[in-house]
């Protein structure tokens, strides 16, 4: 199964991720 987040945010929103990385609930996806 898959979860897709689609959201609006200011231009300076940045993801703190790498494609393919494992992630756990509660860990940061990104921030302004």
């Amino acid at each position: 199964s898959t979860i897709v987040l689609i959201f609006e945010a200011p231009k300076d929103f940045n993801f703190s991720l790498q494609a393919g990385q494992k992630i756990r609930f509660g860990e940061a996806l990104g921030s302004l």
Partner: protein
Amino acid sequence: VHTAPARSLSLLRPLPILVATGGGYAGYRQYEKYRERELEKLGLDVPPKLAGHWEVALYKSVPTRLLSRAWGRLNQVELPHWLRRPVYSLYIWTFGVNMKEAAVEDLHHYRNLSEFFRRRRKPQARPVCGLHSVISPSDGKILNFGQVKNCEVEQVKGVTYSLESFLGPRTPAEDLPFPPAVRHSSFRSQLVTREGNELYHCVIYLAPGVQVGVQLPRIWNGRPAREYQCSLMSVNPGMARWIKELFCHNERVVLTGDWKHGFFSLTAVGATNVGSIRIYFDRDLHTNSPRYSKGSYNDFSFVTHANKEGIPMRKGEHLGEFNLG
């Protein structure tokens, strides 16, 4: 072969044909992979090899929802006490589950695999990051993320799907008090509510065995929900690289709302093994149900005359879960 009676000989004839075509197709696929590796070694960008329409149609014709429901029924069979430890230990070993994080560690507590699949974690097992504005709604693997351009979202690098097909029309027409005065120039302008903002997306793949609870990544006022009855094809990364618009073909629940910067949506996309989606505040939601035809969808709004705000939710709050079958 010489001594076999005529009838069984007629049965034998399709066998070599099947073996030959199957072997030929497998050999062709191996050659394709070899050729792509050689091109990558030369530093040439190999475009993803997408499934043709006939391959997608053939896959969609497989009764995946029926198979998924049968799989769910099988996993609801109550296991005898003595069988629980060996069965769940095999599952733990196969998927690398850490039972120390489970709220109930005793394997005999879970009556069947479905219950074991829905086990809850200890609250302290997953601390919620307080610094960052958006956190992961579940355990999983990041398939893709980034800014949404031209209303096309990348499911994996180089393979996209249409945002409008995925989320569906922004507001159910019957909910509008009057026909929209201005035909929005694009679907994007129906979603982005503030000047200077952009649309972002993040795709998280929940491998089999991953804890299936879904928590909210943000403070959020849940508004309309939309449930699509579609296929339940596998959504593993290999399929996401092969079938364009894969997430638009699959059964899914689209939750939309807003957060402090505007529009926010979380969509749970089902798959063959986990065909059912539960949203705790939506008791009327029934996914993977035989009574709905493929391709239809139901809308539901949590905004009422009495409650204009929808359903307020906090970051890290339990939102729902995927279930087997």
